[in-house]
Structure formats: structure tokens, C-alpha cells
């Protein structure tokens, strides 16, 4: 490794270390500022001191001098604070916060921008020095000694800090050059510092740093084992089936063996027969042996499959744990952020956080960070009122923001963020939505409060009249929702006018696998994430109502719009309904009710299969974004199945609610079975055109790509008529017609030929072949064809 590489590696390591130390300093400073208990104070002071000291050393080792300098001064200042030579004051805390902020900024900014930060650091270093200079004046230095630390009822932040006793080992470990200080040993209670140090030392022995990339790669490999497990259980099933076949075979062989025995007396006179019987016995013995071996194999495969399954599950479980991080890593950002935001506004905010020990996949935590920051900013900026207003409303002058995390189920985490501010003004929200043209005022008037509240998720809506740098631009909430949903989560909001607003975010604990439901639509399989499937049902056509040109279905007393999944995905419809035969009263459509946030739709599919654990994979480097599809998974049999993005499906369903034509189709379905027509056409365009025309008129359509294909379709399922092109590869329309007429059951099938061959000769050829109608494409318009079909069927 060359020196530059080493240097780069060192710098990377430094950056990681610095981030952690800075976060810890920020938190402890914020706590320190609020804290009045002298023991707590000295403990926290010790922590910040230690962090500043370590950061100084780290900065020195990578030669980042400005950071080293500022840490040096902070460290010195902390020492003076510890010794009670400098007072805590709001001014001091601001300076310290500022100093840590600058260090953070310096480290994060690219080399080119560092000069300006450097200047600021220099200025700050001076301020820190000034604070230290204060300690020179004797009245300051003496004062803390005279005040007893137990007088901590005084909430003023200038309350002095209890002096730290000086323990010998502590002195040794202290690497700072000591300032001249009077020996103050009034309080001889052992300092918590050495304990903390011992604790952190053992902590270090038990943990090692591994790059996340390495860990992610391991996790990915472990996740892939799921596919292996599924494949093995598939094979196990196949072996069982084979075993069944063999057992059946053995039974047949046993039966015939008995019959063979009866032939034994004949065998004496027929040597060939005897030979045959011998062969049969040999054969039977072979079968029995195979049976025994297969039974053994089946058992051992079952056993292996079970233990492999358990091992894979355990491995994955453990691997997932390695990528779990406690929420406290995210919580650590919050106090400082609230402090920063509320500072300029004069608002007083108390923060309550619970559940910091709940763990979640670090990828989710990372994805959640920005959204949570945004929501907290909103709460501070828009939610909490100023102390004056709050007092007027008879609330406590300080606002409270609560952030709580709970884990109600093993794979589910619920985050609740609430404030006790003035809540969301629903009337203003409606007004804003109408003003920006999101909804019409007529619709706005008809919205319930809950519905109106969901307007907040639309982009471009903000009730804040003032645009600040952080909020009021109205984009935020839409993005927050998108982020949460990308993590397979759900976000909801509730508000109580005058009392506050609460957001609830539900998230899976781990990202990689989730429960998925396999459905098929348009002849293909897809996976719906179970978190977005409210339930499944079979829809009876009688329950479908039409409103405007939308089809809706009542679910739990709510009108839910009804769509075909195949329509949304742009797939040809293989309507399973028409295939169900001639019992219209028994036709029901399988559907899944999909929910995303506040919206829900009912989606008709061909078939709903089972649920299973799904491992998300990307669609590869080429397919970076495909509408409605979020990824894919590999099933146990190696088959690849796309995973649907339910939120996008719901969004794209807006324009795809079964249009009038489709609902007519359903209407027809209610009263009679759809007529089934086979379209035989080799050109894709013409095929689609014909299909669309006929489907729009309520026919059920199956297509074939040439005469041969068409003929085989006719043999496999019932049709009411055939519409065929004439010129086609393999078997042309004339031949197809002839074959239909020659077939005993198909002979009466109405056949319409649609062609561009407009000669009298061709027409006659068609009639000769037995076509019922002959439509020339040039004169072809849909009414003509529909009329002909209407007449024929």
C-alpha cells in the first residue's frame, strides 16, 4: 500500500470517528445545558471533555490542524469548567455548540471550501480563549467553592458545577497539560469517570469495526440461501411424488404377481412362459428395491431439507441482527436539531424520546432519517406556538415534542411523533388545496375532516403562510410519504385542533425480506407485498356499482374503486371469468384490496395463490426504473417474479378505473355469459385492433397467431365464433375454415374472414371454404364486423 492510500484510509477512519464524537458532544452539551443535577453534570462534562480530547488526538494524527486547535481550546475550557473556574452560561453553551458545529462542518466540507471554515474556527478559538481568560480573575475562580452544589433548585443555567475530585489514576490518564489550579478537594465522592472508562474499555474489546459494504455483502449471501432452501423443499416435493408413483407401480406389480402365480402350472409345459414369469419376478424385485431406496432417500432429503431450512433461517436471523441499529443513533441527532431550529423563534421546546433501544435495519434507519428530520422541523416550525400564544391558550409556555418508538410485533416498528402545538388548520388546508387547483371547491366542501387531512400528502400544499428555509414550501410531506412507502412502510396523520398533531409511521424491522402474496394477472405471476394487501375477496358482479364512468365496490361500507390489475400493467386480459364456463350466477372475480396510506383500491386478478417470504432483488443494472414494479424475487423453483409497487399501482389506477366500456362488459356479465370469440390474425397490430373493438363490445376474446394456433385453440376450449385473417403463415384462413367445417363438433361454428384480398375470386374461395361472412379490410369499419357477429351468434 502506498503512503497516499494509507493517508486516505486514515482520513476515512477519522471521518467516521469524528462523526461519532461530534454527535456525542452535541448531545451531551445539550443535556448539560438543561441538567441541574451536579452528579449528572460532572458526568456529562467528563464525557464531552473526553470526546474533545480524543478528537484532538485523532485530528492530530491525520494532520488536520484547525480541528486539533479548536479541540485543544475546548478541552482546556472543559477542564476549567470541571474545576469550577469558569461558569456555565447560555453564551458559553452557544459558543461550544458553535465550535462543535464548525468542526463538523470543517470535516464534512470538501478541501476547497475549508478555508472559510478555517477562518471561522480561528475566530472561535479566540472566543474560547477569552472564556478561559475569565478564569484568570480571582473572584470568578473563587465563587464556585462558596456555593454548595446541592442548591440545585436553581434552574438557571449559570448554576455552578460541582468540582471534580482529583483521583490519582485519573490525573495520570489526563493528557492535557494542567493549568495552574488550586487544590480543591471539598468533595471526595469518587468520580464516575474511571468507571466509565473501564466500561468503555471492555466495550472496545467486544466490538470491532467492519465496513458496512462487507456486512451488506454477507447479508446478501445469507439472503440468497433462502432461494436454496425453497429449491430444496421443491425437490423434496418432487421426490415424494416420484415415490408415490413407485409405490403405485409396486402395487400393480404385486397384483400381477398373484395372477402370474396362477400361471405357474402352465409354465411347465411352456418354457417361454416360465422365462417370462422369471423375468416378471426379477422385475418385481427391482421395483421393491427401488421403492425401499426411494423411501430412504425421501426421508433423508426431508431431514436434510428441514435442518437446512432451520439453519438458513437462523443464519439469516443472526445476519439480520448484525445490520440492526438502535433508534438511539437517530435520536442522537434530534436534541441538537430542535435546539438549532427553535433558537431563532423564541419557542421553548421540551423533547421526550422513548424507545431508543428498539432496533431496526440500518438501511431503513438511513432511509427514515430525512423524513423524520422533516417532520420534527415541521413540528417545531409550524406546530409549537410561541410562549406568548401558548400562555394565552392556557397551555404550558413550553411545547412538548414526543418521539416514541415501539415494537408491537417482531417484524414491525411503530414510530409516533407528536407535538402539543396548535394542530393543523383543516379549513386552511382545504382552501390551499383549492387555490393550488388540486381539488375543486365543490369537492373540498364535501370532504370529511379525515379526507381533507390527507390532502397534506399532496405536493404543493403547505398551510404555513410563511416560507422559511426549512419549511412552508409544501413539497416536504409528499416526499416524506414517498420515502416511508419506499421502505415498505405506512404513514398516517391525526390532528386535534388546538391540541397538536401526531404522525404515526409503521415500518418493517428488516428490509430485505417481507411477506408477499403471489397473484396472477394477464397470464403472468406477480408479487404483492402483504403489508399493502388489506384482504382478498371474491367479487360478485352484482355488487359492482357504476358511478360516472368508474366502477366501484362497497367494502366495509366504503366505496372503493375497482380495477383490473392486468389493465394497470398494460397486459392483455385473460379474463378468468369467462373461462369459468356457462354458470354466470356462479361467476365471482378474485380481487385484492390494496391500501397505501389513505387510498385504497380493489384490484381484480386472475388468480390468488399463496403467501411466502420474499427476498427483494433489483431488476439489474439496465432496468433502473419501471413503472409499477419495485423489484423482483426468485421463487423456489428458480422462476423470477416481479414485485409490484402498490403505491404506484394505486396512483396509476386513477386513470384506469374500469371505464364505462368495461363496466358494460361487467354489466353484460351480470345477465349473460360473454360470447367467446377467437381472433386468428398474424399481424400484431391488426390482432390488437380487432381484440380491442370486440372486447369493447363485450365479447370475450382469445387470440391466435396463425391458423394452426387457432385450430388448436378451437380444440381446447369452446368458442361462439371465429374471426380470422386469410393470409397467414403455417395455415391460412381458407384452410382453417375448411378444417373447421370438416371437424365433427366444430362444423357449425360461425367463421368470419377479414382480409385485404378484395377480389371476387378470393371471396368465392372463402365462401367455398365455408366462411359465413367475408369482410374486406379496406371497407372494414367496426360496425360492419360487429353487425355481422351480432347476426351470426
Amino acid at each position, binding site marked *: 500500500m502506498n503512503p497516499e492510500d494509507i493517508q486516505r484510509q486514515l482520513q476515512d477512519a477519522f471521518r467516521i470517528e469524528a462523526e461519532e464524537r461530534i454527535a456525542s458532544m452535541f448531545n451531551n452539551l445539550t443535556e448539560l445545558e438543561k441538567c441541574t443535577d451536579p452528579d449528572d453534570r460532572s458526568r456529562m462534562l467528563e464525557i464531552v471533555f473526553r470526546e474533545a480530547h480524543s478528537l484532538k488526538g485523532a485530528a492530530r494524527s491525520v494532520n488536520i490542524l484547525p480541528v486539533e486547535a479548536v479541540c485543544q481550546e475546548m478541552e482546556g475550557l472543559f477542564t476549567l469548567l470541571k474545576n469550577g473556574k469558569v461558569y456555565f452560561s447560555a453564551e458559553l453553551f452557544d459558543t461550544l455548540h458553535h465550535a462543535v458545529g464548525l468542526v463538523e462542518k470543517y470535516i464534512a466540507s470538501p478541501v476547497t471550501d475549508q478555508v472559510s471554515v478555517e477562518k471561522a474556527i480561528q475566530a472561535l478559538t479566540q472566543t474560547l480563549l477569552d472564556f478561559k481568560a475569565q478564569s484568570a480573575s480571582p473572584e470568578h475562580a473563587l465563587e464556585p467553592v462558596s456555593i454548595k452544589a446541592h442548591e440545585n433548585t436553581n434552574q438557571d443555567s449559570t448554576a455552578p458545577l460541582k468540582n471534580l475530585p482529583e483521583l490519582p489514576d485519573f490525573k495520570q490518564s489526563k493528557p492535557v497539560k494542567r493549568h495552574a489550579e488550586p487544590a480543591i478537594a471539598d468533595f471526595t465522592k469518587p468520580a464516575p469517570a474511571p468507571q466509565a472508562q473501564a466500561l468503555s474499555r471492555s466495550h472496545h474489546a467486544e466490538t470491532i469495526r467492519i465496513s458496512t459494504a462487507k456486512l451488506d455483502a454477507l447479508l446478501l449471501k445469507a439472503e*440468497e440461501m433462502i*432461494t436454496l432452501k425453497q429449491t430444496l423443499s421443491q425437490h423434496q416435493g418432487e421426490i415424494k411424488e416420484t415415490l408415490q408413483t413407485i409405490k403405485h407401480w409396486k402395487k400393480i406389480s404385486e397384483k400381477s404377481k398373484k395372477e402370474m402365480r396362477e400361471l405357474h402350472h402352465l409354465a411347465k409345459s411352456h418354457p417361454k412362459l416360465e422365462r417370462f414369469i422369471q423375468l416378471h419376478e426379477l422385475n418385481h424385485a427391482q421395483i421393491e428395491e427401488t421403492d425401499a431406496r426411494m423411501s430412504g432417500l425421501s426421508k433423508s432429503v426431508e431431514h436434510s431439507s428441514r435442518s437446512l431450512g432451520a439453519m438458513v433461517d437462523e443464519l439469516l436471523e443472526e445476519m439480520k441482527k448484525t445490520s440492526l441499529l438502535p433508534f438511539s443513533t437517530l435520536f442522537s441527532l434530534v436534541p441538537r436539531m430542535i435546539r438549532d431550529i427553535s433558537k431563532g423563534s423564541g419557542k421553548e421546546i421540551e423533547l421526550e424520546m422513548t424507545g431508543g433501544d428498539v432496533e431496526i435495519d440500518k438501511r431503513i434507519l438511513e432511509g427514515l432519517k430525512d423524513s423524520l428530520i422533516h417532520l420534527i422541523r415541521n413540528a417545531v416550525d409550524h406546530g409549537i406556538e410561541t410562549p406568548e400564544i401558548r400562555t394565552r391558550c392556557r397551555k404550558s409556555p413550553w411545547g412538548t415534542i414526543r418521539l416514541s418508538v415501539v415494537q408491537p410485533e417482531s417484524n414491525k416498528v411503530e414510530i409516533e411523533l407528536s407535538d402539543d402545538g396548535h394542530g393543523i388548520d383543516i379549513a386552511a388546508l382545504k382552501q390551499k388545496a383549492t387555490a393550488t387547483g388540486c381539488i375543486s371547491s365543490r369537492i373540498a366542501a364535501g370532504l370529511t375532516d379525515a379526507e381533507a387531512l390527507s390532502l397534506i400528502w399532496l405536493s404543493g400544499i403547505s398551510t404555513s403562510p410563511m416560507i422559511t428555509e426549512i419549511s412552508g414550501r409544501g413539497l416536504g410531506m409528499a416526499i416524506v410519504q414517498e420515502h416511508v412507502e419506499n421502505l415498505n412502510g405506512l404513514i398516517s396523520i391525526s390532528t386535534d385542533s388546538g391540541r397538536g398533531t401526531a404522525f404515526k409511521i409503521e415500518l418493517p424491522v428488516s428490509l430485505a425480506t417481507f411477506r408477499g402474496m403471489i397473484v396472477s394477472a*394477464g397470464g*403472468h405471476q406477480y408479487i404483492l407485498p402483504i403489508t399493502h394487501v388489506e384482504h382478498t375477496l371474491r367479487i360478485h358482479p352484482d355488487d359492482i356499482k357504476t358511478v360516472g364512468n368508474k366502477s366501484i365496490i362497497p367494502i366495509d361500507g366504503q366505496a372503493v374503486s375497482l380495477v383490473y390489475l392486468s389493465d394497470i*400493467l*398494460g*397486459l392483455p386480459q385473460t379474463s378468468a371469468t369467462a373461462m369459468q364456463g356457462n354458470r354466470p350466477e356462479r361467476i365471482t372475480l378474485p380481487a385484492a384490496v390494496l391500501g397505501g396510506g389513505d387510498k385504497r383500491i380493489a384490484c381484480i386478478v386472475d388468480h390468488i395463490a399463496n403467501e411466502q417470504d420474499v427476498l427483494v*432483488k*433489483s*431488476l*439489474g*443494472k*439496465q*432496468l*433502473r*426504473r*419501471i*413503472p*409499477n*414494479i419495485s423489484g*423482483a424475487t*426468485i421463487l423456489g423453483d*428458480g*422462476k*423470477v*417474479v*416481479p414485485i409490484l409497487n402498490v403505491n404506484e399501482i394505486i396512483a396509476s389506477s386513477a386513470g384506469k378505473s374500469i371505464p364505462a366500456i368495461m363496466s358494460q362488459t361487467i354489466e353484460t356479465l351480470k345477465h349473460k355469459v360473454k360470447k367467446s370469440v377467437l381472433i386468428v390474425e398474424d399481424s*400484431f397490430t391488426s390482432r390488437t385492433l380487432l381484440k380491442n373493438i370486440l372486447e369493447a363490445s363485450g365479447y370475450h376474446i382469445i387470440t391466435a397467431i396463425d391458423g394452426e394456433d387457432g385450430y388448436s385453440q378451437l380444440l381446447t376450449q369452446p368458442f361462439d365464433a371465429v374471426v380470422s385473417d386469410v393470409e397467414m*403463415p403455417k395455415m391460412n384462413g381458407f384452410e382453417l375454415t375448411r378444417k373447421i367445417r370438416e371437424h365433427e363438433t366444430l362444423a357449425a361454428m360461425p367463421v368470419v374472414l377479414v382480409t385485404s384480398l378484395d377480389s371476387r375470386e378470393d371471396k368465392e374461395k372463402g365462401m367455398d371454404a365455408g366462411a359465413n361472412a367475408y369482410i374486406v379490410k379496406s371497407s372494414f369499419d367496426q360496425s360492419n364486423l360487429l353487425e355481422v357477429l351480432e347476426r351470426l351468434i
Partner: protein
Amino acid sequence: MNDEPCATTGLTEQILKIRAEQLARIRLSRETRGDFITVVEFRIAQEIYAIELTHIRTIHPLKDLTYIPGAPSFIKGIFNLRGEIISVVDLKHFFNLPDQKPGHAHQVIILSSKDMEFGILSDAIFGVREINTDDIRDSLPALAGIRQEYLKGVTGSGIAVLDDEKLLNDQKMIIFL
């Protein structure tokens, strides 16, 4: 090849000597006749193509292609390559060639670079061979059309040599909808 067992050391030496001579001969002809590139020759419908080995990750038999609704028509679907998902391109559609008789694609040639990876459908793979770059000419007017910009040229024997870099770096190949 190198670890195949040899009966005697004498035989090994002899084989090595022959190989060395063969290699030397190729080297010699390279010097005299310009560069050689190693290509895979394959067939799509009725046409024979060649593509350099450099960016070929592997060649895999095609089975179970999963259709991706909403993707452009030249994306035939995705498939499972040992647990990894690879998208598959039908060059006939990509080049906008007149819809010929549907081929029976059996093989996928997987092209891969740092930022891009996809498979190309092929009806048959003929094998690996060397082509002299001097032998590659500008494509014939008969091959005009969109395809031309993705060809390095055509060999004397009429094999269309695909430009792998161009295909891998082409913006049109990135699907972001």
C-alpha cells in the same frame, strides 16, 4: 487444459513445444497483419453476428424468461442467472429490424461493464474465433439503418461485428421510466 495429466514428462515437453510454436506463429501474424480480436460468433434470426469477448461475462442457456410489463419492446424480460437478475435484450427489436419470423432463442450472451449489464438473445452460438481487424470493413448499405451505429463493421465473410462498448454505454439501453 494446463492441468490435464500427462503420461510422461517427455510428452509434456513435446506438447508445450508445439504450443509455443503455435503461439509464436500467431504473434508473428499479428505483427505483420494488424490486430486480432477474439469474438463470439452467434446467430440472431437469419443473421450472423460477432461480438468481442472483452465484455462478455458469460453465455447462458435461456429458460423461464419473465416478462416485464411497461418496459420497451426490446426488453424481452428478466431471468435468473445463478440468483442474480439479468435483463434480456432482443437486438432485432432494438435495431428496429423488420419483424422477421420469430426465432427460437436458446442462448443469452451476457454483456457486462461497471455500470451496465444485460443479456442479448441469440438463436445459436457458433463459437469463439479470432478476427483480424483489417478484415472488418464499413458495413454494407444493405445493413443501413439504426443498426449501423452499433456495428464496428462487417467482415469479408459478411459477419456483422457488434460494437460492445457502444451497446453498453448507449443511453437508449438504460431504462428509466
